[in-house]
């Protein structure tokens, strides 16, 4: 495992880029705790100042320091994404394992429900939910709501992996030797499923954070909590661009681009690493 990670670092510049960006942002998120201002308060600094040595990324029209606001936004967005990822992983693994291992009617039933969640237009449904709870949605509860809706595709992926594992030799051996179902799953299957969980987690994080931005821009989350989405919301709704306060709008937008790109490249690179077929193609590409 360690060796594998080391190899990823050496071989894949995309992995390196993604990892460094996420690591830097993670440090930023931790530093948010040292912010001199409460991110919810207005008028703690002079308004509308461009970047300077005092206010690194300037200040906004609500009298907030954009730099510290951005750190808080990163922190909240990452926490929200992580909660969404963890809760959807729990559902996806449970459904995928159950459907794949039990098979038969259970499988058909669970997969019909799963496919329904894949097909359903989630944005309108999430809009309906968030518009009802709006300001009552904390970072945690929004994460959980996104988790409840974002598991379906990954459950499918895990199920098909379990299906193929079930056909393999060691399952028969394990079943014949009287191993309990729980043990088979944790001892024999987890080593195969765990990489899938990691790989799909990146994509899910992308989806959840993208959804947060979308909902926030529409004004459907608690707007006092600084997140990447709410930062954009305030900047756009206060006409920051027209008024020439580019630092205000550009900060969250650039952050978004970096975070999403980093997560995406990480997921591409991990997926390739897990699927030797793609790796071979790469090799061909490099060789020219």
């Amino acid at each position, binding site marked *: 495992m360690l*060796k*594998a990670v*080391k*190899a990823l670092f*050496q*071989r894949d510049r995309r992995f390196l880029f993604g990892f460094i960006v996420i690591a830097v942002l993670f440090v930023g998120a931790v530093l948010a705790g040292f912010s001199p201002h409460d991110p919810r308060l207005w008028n703690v600094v002079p308004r509308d100042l461009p970047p300077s040595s005092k206010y690194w990324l300037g200040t906004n029209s609500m009298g907030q320091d954009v730099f510290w606001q951005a750190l808080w936004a990163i922190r909240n967005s990452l926490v929200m994404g992580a909660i969404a990822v963890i809760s959807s992983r729990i559902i996806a693994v449970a459904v995928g394992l159950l459907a794949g291992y039990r098979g038969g009617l259970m499988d058909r039933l669970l997969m019909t429900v799963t496919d329904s969640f894949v097909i359903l237009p989630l944005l309108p449904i999430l809009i309906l939910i968030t518009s009802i709870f709006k300001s009552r949605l904390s970072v945690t509860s929004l994460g959980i709501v996104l988790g409840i809706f974002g598991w379906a595709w990954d459950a499918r992926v895990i199920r098909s992996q379990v299906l193929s594992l079930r056909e393999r030799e060691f399952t028969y051996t394990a079943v014949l030797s009287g191993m309990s179902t729980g043990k088979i799953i944790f001892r024999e299957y987890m080593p195969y499923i765990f990489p899938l969980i990691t790989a799909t987690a990146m994509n899910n994080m992308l989806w959840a954070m993208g959804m947060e931005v979308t909902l926030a821009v529409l004004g459907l989350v608690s707007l006092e909590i600084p997140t990447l989405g709410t930062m954009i919301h305030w900047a756009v709704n206060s006409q920051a661009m027209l008024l020439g306060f580019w630092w205000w709008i550009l900060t969250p937008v650039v952050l978004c681009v970096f975070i999403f790109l980093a997560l995406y490249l990480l997921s591409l690179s991990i997926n390739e690493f897990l699927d*030797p077929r793609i*790796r*071979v193609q790469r*090799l*061909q590409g490099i*060789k020219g």
Partner: protein
Amino acid sequence: MDVLRVEKLKAFYIMESAGEERAVKAVNDVSLTVRENEVLGIAGESGCGKSTLLKSLLGSIRPPLRHMGGRVTYLHRDREMDILSLPKEERQKLMWQHISYVPQGSLSVLNPVRRIGDTFRSFVGAHLDIQKDPDRFESLVRSHLQDLGLPVDTLKAYPHQLSGGMRQRVTIALATILKPRLILADEPSTALDVVVQRGVIQLLRDIQTEQHNTIVMVTHDMAIHANISDRVAIMYAGRIIEEAPVERIFAKPLHPYTQYLIGSLPRIGDKSYRLSAPGTPPSLADLPPGCAFHPRCPNAESICRREIPSLSLAGRDHRVACFLAAKEDADVGSSEALGSQ
């Protein structure tokens, strides 16, 4: 006259896992020649590198397979062509009109979403101008299928609609439609039942009688070699370990591995039969030192564990790569190493 010469060919699958490279030595220092109008059989158990050898002979070496040395020379119209260094266009020109190929596994090699007729069109169209004279193309394909005893309706079918035997005949028809001089056939009869198997082999023989082509015939089934091959080369762990005319291979096998193959020959058509000697074949990624066969060899001596035997003359047109066989055989005094001349 030779039509194909292979010299010290090496082709390895280079795999990397967890940052480490691993070489699967599927074709390891293979030298052989193919003579005009003969059927050269290549035998060996599953995974010993037969298909990889054929792919390399066709110049189709792509990652993870890598060319590690040696040459593959075709003699065509008094020109010698090294297929591994030939420009792509030249190689394409050589294909199908001069050299053609019956791949292993007939379902996976036919495009699942196109009708058989369309596959004929793209294969023939790559070498003849069929746009100009579509009728001639039609009649060419029809008459070829009829010659091979295949219903013309096959052209309208999709691959999965045909039976395994039918598909195998289609791949043979596809490979022979331009009357190539040399056909490389990879297990054309494996995975078929006995009656069909015999039909397919008969088909190849008929084609050879009719078109006078040279055939390189890969199969692990010694009974088929007895039936169709003129000469047989035995492959073990990526190397040719014995090569002789078919009568001689059966009458006087010298390599202990060949002896197993011949000794375990069952009644013709026994399906459960697979080539095997006691023990398991070595991993091509982790070959034992010395002769790759020594862990399974009943009479291995210390030299077998240290040195790799080279293919040496051991009788008329008979070559073997074994220290013990060369010593035993009285016909030849010294084990003179034999490369290509």
